[in-house]
């Protein structure tokens, strides 16, 4: 058997359960924002290229929202990346180094994609036919970033591959050759495009009374995109399940009660979302989809634990207790939420006032 290269983890200040809780609390937020970004941009791009007036209006509205969404994708990504480093640092730091050259490329790629999004927003009209190209470049870069994230998140769960370091010291080891990589990445990508449809429909609803045609068009486009893409994604999901090592696949098929229940609930939620989208019931689709994303993140976490269980379980992390910083964090979090609430209220007041003034 080849030797395993797994670093010694550092100690943690509070029980691992707190970090798992915070990870599962914040990661769905990142996923939803990322889905809105990627799916919204793809649908906006498609609408822009379709060329009709209503389509261009919708594309423009998506373009205006995009920089704000990207800001929150990044922000909501920071917290789960922090907590996953605390829980699985010895794997994640190692896998990041193993693909270091690609991993660091994410930074310039994201900066270019983000500036592209701002350019697309601020110069939407002036750019003319160049606009979709800028949007396409941003989309390509963001999808490529997702590709690198998928590589790293899979690689960190496969420590038996870490020995390949010695032939990739320059950080060029990727995991897309693994049988489960492509279904995993496509499942994530298609899911993002589908949920992006619901985001587009939500954007259309903004000031619905002033632009009823746009709202109806956005809902039509958003729900139909969601319906088709989610249906396709269910099939890809099964492909992903079958591509997993047998032992892991069986976890969701009776091997583990919790994982099986979660899988069952996810299937029901997917069916519910598809049915609601088919019936054009937006909010019902929306809530089913949100719940589905949350359950999916739970299943993803389950899968990672199962990948690593022979070499590491979270209860092996040594706790050197110091709880006061965490309490301080929760106090800050509440204060931060109050501040954000105040900002939303004040902004809403402006929109209400402007609405009244026509």
């Amino acid at each position, binding site marked *: 058997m080849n030797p395993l*290269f*797994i*670093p*010694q*983890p*550092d100690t*943690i*200040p509070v029980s691992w359960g707190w*970090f798992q809780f915070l990870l599962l609390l914040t990661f769905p937020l990142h996923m939803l924002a990322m889905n809105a970004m990627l799916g919204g941009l793809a649908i906006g791009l498609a609408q822009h290229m379709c060329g009709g007036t209503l389509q261009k209006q919708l594309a423009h509205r998506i373009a205006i929202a995009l920089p*704000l969404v990207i*800001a*929150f994708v*990044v*922000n909501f990504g*920071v*917290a789960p990346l*922090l907590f996953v*480093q*605390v829980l699985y*640092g*010895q794997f994640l*730091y*190692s896998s*990041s*180094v*193993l693909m*270091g*050259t690609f*991993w*660091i490329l994410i*930074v310039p790629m*994201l*900066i270019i994609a*983000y*500036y592209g999004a*701002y350019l697309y927003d601020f110069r939407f009209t002036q750019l003319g036919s160049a606009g979709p190209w800028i949007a396409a470049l941003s989309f390509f870069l963001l999808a490529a970033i997702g590709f690198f994230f998928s590589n790293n998140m899979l690689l960190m769960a496969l420590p038996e591959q*870490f020995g390949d*370091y*010695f032939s990739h*010291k*320059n*950080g060029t080891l990727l995991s897309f050759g693994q049988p489960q990589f492509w279904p995993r990445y496509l499942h994530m990508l298609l899911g993002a495009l589908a949920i992006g449809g619901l985001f587009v429909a939500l954007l259309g609803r903004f000031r619905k009374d002033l632009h009823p045609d746009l709202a109806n068009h956005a809902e039509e486009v958003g729900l139909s995109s969601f319906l088709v893409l989610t249906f396709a994604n269910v099939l890809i999901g099964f492909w992903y399940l079958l591509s997993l090592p047998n032992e892991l696949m069986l976890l969701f098929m009776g091997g583990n009660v919790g994982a099986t229940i979660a899988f069952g609930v996810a299937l029901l939620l997917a069916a519910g979302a598809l049915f609601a989208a088919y019936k054009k019931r937006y909010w019902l689709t929306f809530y089913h989809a949100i719940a589905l994303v949350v359950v999916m993140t739970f299943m993803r976490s389950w899968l990672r634990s199962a990948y690593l269980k022979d070499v590491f379980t979270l209860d092996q992390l040594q706790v*050197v207790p*110091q709880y*006061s*910083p965490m309490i*301080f*964090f929760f106090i*800050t*979090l509440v*204060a*931060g939420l109050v*501040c*954000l609430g*105040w*900002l939303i209220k*004040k*902004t809403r007041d*402006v929109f209400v006032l*402007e609405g009244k003034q026509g």
Partner: protein
Amino acid sequence: MNYPVWYLPETGGGFLIALISILHVFVSHFAVGGGLYLIYAEKKGLKENSQPILDFTKKHARFFLLVTMVFGSISGVGIWFIIALVNPAATSLLIHNFVFAWAIEWVFFTVEIGAAFVYYYMFGRMDSRTHLQVGWLYFIAAWMSLLVINGIIGVMLTPGSWAQDMDFWAGFFNPSFFPSLVFRTFIALMIAACYGFLSASFTADAGTRISMTRFSAKWALVTLVFTLISGLWYLSVLPDQSQGLVMGKSPTIAAIQPLTAAGFVSFLLLMLVAGIVRPSLNLKPVAGLAMISALVVMGGFEWTREAARRPYVINGVMYSNSIMKKDLAALNDGGFLRSALWVQNKEVSEENLELAGEEIFINQCYACHTVGGINNDIIAATRTMSYRALVSYLKKIHELRYFMPPFVGTEQEGRALAAYIAGGLHGKEVQEPQQDAGSVAKGPALFEENCASCHALEDLSSLQGVAKEEIVAMLRTLNEISEEMEPFGGSVEAHGQLAAFLGGHTDTAQQETAIDGKAIFETHCRLCHGVEEMAPMIGNIDRQEIFTLLGRLDQLESSMPPFGGTAEEQEALADFLASINQGGK
């Protein structure tokens, strides 16, 4: 050693960290100071009832948003990525200790984003009182982000008692926390003024350009003074060794200081001349030059701060190459390669000498040295050294150069590293020293072992023909020639041999083989003891007992070190001391 090394021999991780972090801090400090600048620019517009100034402020807010939200926030994530790639062990240690500080910073970052968007998109749409409140909320959140990050960065330079107990609060409120916070606050305001100066240069309306140029320059000059004062406070709380490095002992810092000073003077002059005296001179190239000057000052500070904690990445806790200080003894005893996880050669043999050496290089030296790159190239740094010089140099590397970590590992591993550098990189001969070499051959060997790490022989050609005694005297007082040198630590015999070699007196070197007990006394004892005072101290102690006592002088008097010469020299010195009461030899 616990984590793999991302090995880009010609680039080096340090260069990537410097590149990302210097650009990031120049923007992230703008993100803090710029918040307050926007508030006061808006207040100025409101107070003077000037729509052009309010328009300027809104345009500047858009510029602010584009620079800080995109480049600032993504390069901030970039720093996190790059430090985790280049030094995962230190990143992991800090993340695990200060996870909730980062989590708190994340909350402030979220509020910052929300407030920045509302401030820009609601400019002119929201009532000005609420709008200014949004500006204040932004600034407070941004400053709190700075405060939190300042606590974590500070622990790397001045860990205080955290180094012992790893207590979160002791680390966070470390000895440089407050001076660093005040210093960074002023530098953030200064940089914000510089960005304002730049925006003013792009303003078409002449009156607004002049007004906002003066406004920005006043900010810059006032904050510059406070930056200087708080900088001195910051410097005063640094540990002595870090202060020494900052004040010139670190060549890395010394190299950057003239540039930083030039940037500082340039910035000062530009603000005075093109900001206060003749604001109409604030044209785009002038403002661009001010930006470059400010970037140089900021870069100089960050560069200095990073280098001031050498040889550590976390001062007193973890060396730059990720080796924990507390692990040194165990690694020296048990061997570095055996303990390192990501190596293939666990043992050193004559067959794998260079391969094992390369793995040691990657794990111990590559953190700071590139191979053939621009930054701290190991090939250039060791060009004059032979294999033997390297073997000797590695043993005392941290003594000769305080800012370098000690070599960690067994003697055999030291040989492997020397073999990789001398043989693998330079293609030089890898040959063990000849133990039985005659005294003529010892001169070059002594030079290689003791001098060649810093000097090429031709650099010392001026010593050719100088009297041997004079060179011996110089060797004993090398520290008076340069602070970076220590007096030559060899035996009396070695002094003579090295001096003979340096002076070109190789024909006389053969005469140095006889060991002179009196000369040894002069070298080792004379600094504190005269010959005449030794006579009553020795009394009638016999020669053999004197020999024994020389080996444990510290037991006679704690301030005396045991005699450190060779056994032959100890014999000769014992003979000499025993002969004192008989009139000396």
